[in-house]
């Protein structure tokens, strides 16, 4: 006989109500509690700017409304270039880069996952490529491309604008990241799906196109958008090549007026660009979580 399991159950009726002390967190009071705590925390953080010994200087240097406006709209008399024009450069750079990254990322992932013996050298090259470009800091790739290609004096390759070199550098680096994201998505498709498709006599390529990729895309979109958000911000790094995008325009305003408010403006507008994308990505992730819960019921 087993021993040591003769636990006696209590005959007392247990009390199931929340304790008096934590009652302020229950029900409608909970909403009040969360609003109060939010205001308190935000207030605390903001008050640092007012309480700190250098607070007044900080506010006038980073948040001067007039300087912010000048940096945003530009002032040709003083040679200040408008952040709003620079921002357009950021926008076209990330739009073009994202398209290119999607294309090259997919091509790289496809190459790394191919099984044809003829493609072996390409497979090795693709693997080396992702290793190299995930390992070198973007700013270095930017400098090498931006100053290296012109130095080659190699026809049209060497005569492009800094923004174009920026797009090339962004594409080189981000293709490596995105290729890995896509590859992980492809590997996440259950093996049974491939077996079923191949058993129907579908070729490797058709299986990829009709069965694997459509399922992988669902898994891949949230991390892919994450990389794109990151890419949107990193268009700022093109400023090291002298391309006049938002960050560069802000830096010019700073150096002319000795006031940093332009940087704040640039930061705000990067947020305006990325936050919708961030929210959308989170929304997709939530939707995906719900879908998984439903399908595993």
């Amino acid at each position, binding site marked *: 006989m087993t021993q040591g399991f003769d636990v006696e159950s209590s005959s007392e009726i247990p009390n199931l109500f929340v304790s008096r002390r934590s009652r302020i967190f229950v029900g409608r009071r909970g909403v009040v509690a969360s609003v109060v705590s939010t205001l308190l925390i935000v207030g605390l953080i903001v008050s640092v700017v007012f309480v700190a010994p250098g607070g007044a200087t900080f506010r006038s240097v980073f948040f001067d409304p007039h300087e912010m406006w000048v940096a945003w709209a530009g002032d040709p008399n003083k040679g200040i270039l408008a952040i709003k024009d620079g921002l357009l450069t950021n926008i076209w750079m990330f739009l073009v880069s994202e398209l290119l990254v999607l294309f090259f990322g997919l091509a790289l992932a496809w190459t790394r996952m191919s099984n044809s013996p003829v493609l072996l050298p390409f497979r090795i090259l693709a693997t080396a490529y992702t290793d190299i470009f995930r390992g070198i800091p973007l700013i270095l790739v930017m400098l090498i491309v931006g100053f290296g290609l012109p130095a080659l004096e190699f026809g049209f390759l060497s005569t492009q604008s800094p923004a174009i070199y920026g797009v090339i550098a962004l594409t080189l680096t981000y293709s490596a990241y995105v290729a890995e994201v896509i590859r992980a998505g492809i590997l996440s498709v259950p093996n*049974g*799906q491939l077996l079923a*498709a*191949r*058993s*129907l*006599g579908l070729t490797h390529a*058709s299986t990829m196109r009709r069965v694997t990729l459509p*399922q992988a895309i669902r898994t891949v979109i949230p991390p892919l958008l994450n990389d794109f958000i990151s890419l949107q911000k990193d268009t700022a790094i093109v400023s090291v090549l002298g391309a006049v995008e938002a960050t560069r325009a802000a830096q010019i305003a700073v150096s002319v007026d000795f006031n940093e408010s332009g940087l704040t403006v640039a930061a705000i507008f990067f947020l305006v660009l990325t936050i919708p994308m961030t929210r959308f990505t989170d929304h997709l992730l939530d939707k995906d979580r719900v879908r998984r819960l439903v*399908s595993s019921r």
Partner: protein
Amino acid sequence: MSDVVLELNSVVKRFGDHEVLSGVSLQLHRHEVVCLIGASGSGKSTLLRCANMLETVDGGSVSLFGQSLMDPRIDPDLVRRHIGMVFQSFNLFPHLSVLDNVLLGPVRALKRKKNDVRDEALALLDRIGLKERAEDFPDHLSGGQQQRVAIVRSLAMRPSLLLLDEVTSALDPTLVGEVLDLLSDLAHQGTTMLIATHEMNFARDVAHQIAYLDQGVLVEMGTPDQIFNAAQHASTRNFLERVR
């Protein structure tokens, strides 16, 4: 001789050091149903996969319609178009509707016109009582319904041979019947099938031949009567005793 569909000759298959099939020989004739029985891990699934080239063979030979699959000029995709395979876990494509699951093979592998195949596919779905669910996605169907769709999906390829890998093992006991009924119908219509199964009553009713596999060895093969009532080998009798 000419009606031999599939022939395995001393097939050996290893995974690393582990020998999963140790010289299995077997013939399957047109309109014949052969059931593979044996414990889990006895090599039933591997044998099926060697038949449609999902696995390569390490020794012996496999031939389909008298053509050796060992020949390097054989195109595996062509071979698989003539052999239907149904899996334990259904493996329906979750991103495609029931109808599109059935259409994928004929349209993308056989390059037939979608409009030509659609009526055939709907007729097949009608036969299993799921025509009304054609536009639904697989995860809205019960396990039994999904497995019947999976069977229809391979039938839409008009295969010469159907391989079934423990197709009822992942199902609720209440859903097993509907799938076995469909297989019985197919057997009566003369579909050539190689079936790995744990359903002994089904095997006894439907199979022309039963093959007992034990640790990669085909111990014995015979009619249901021979196997269930007069097994020659002690290990066969032992196995049947345990599953009864």
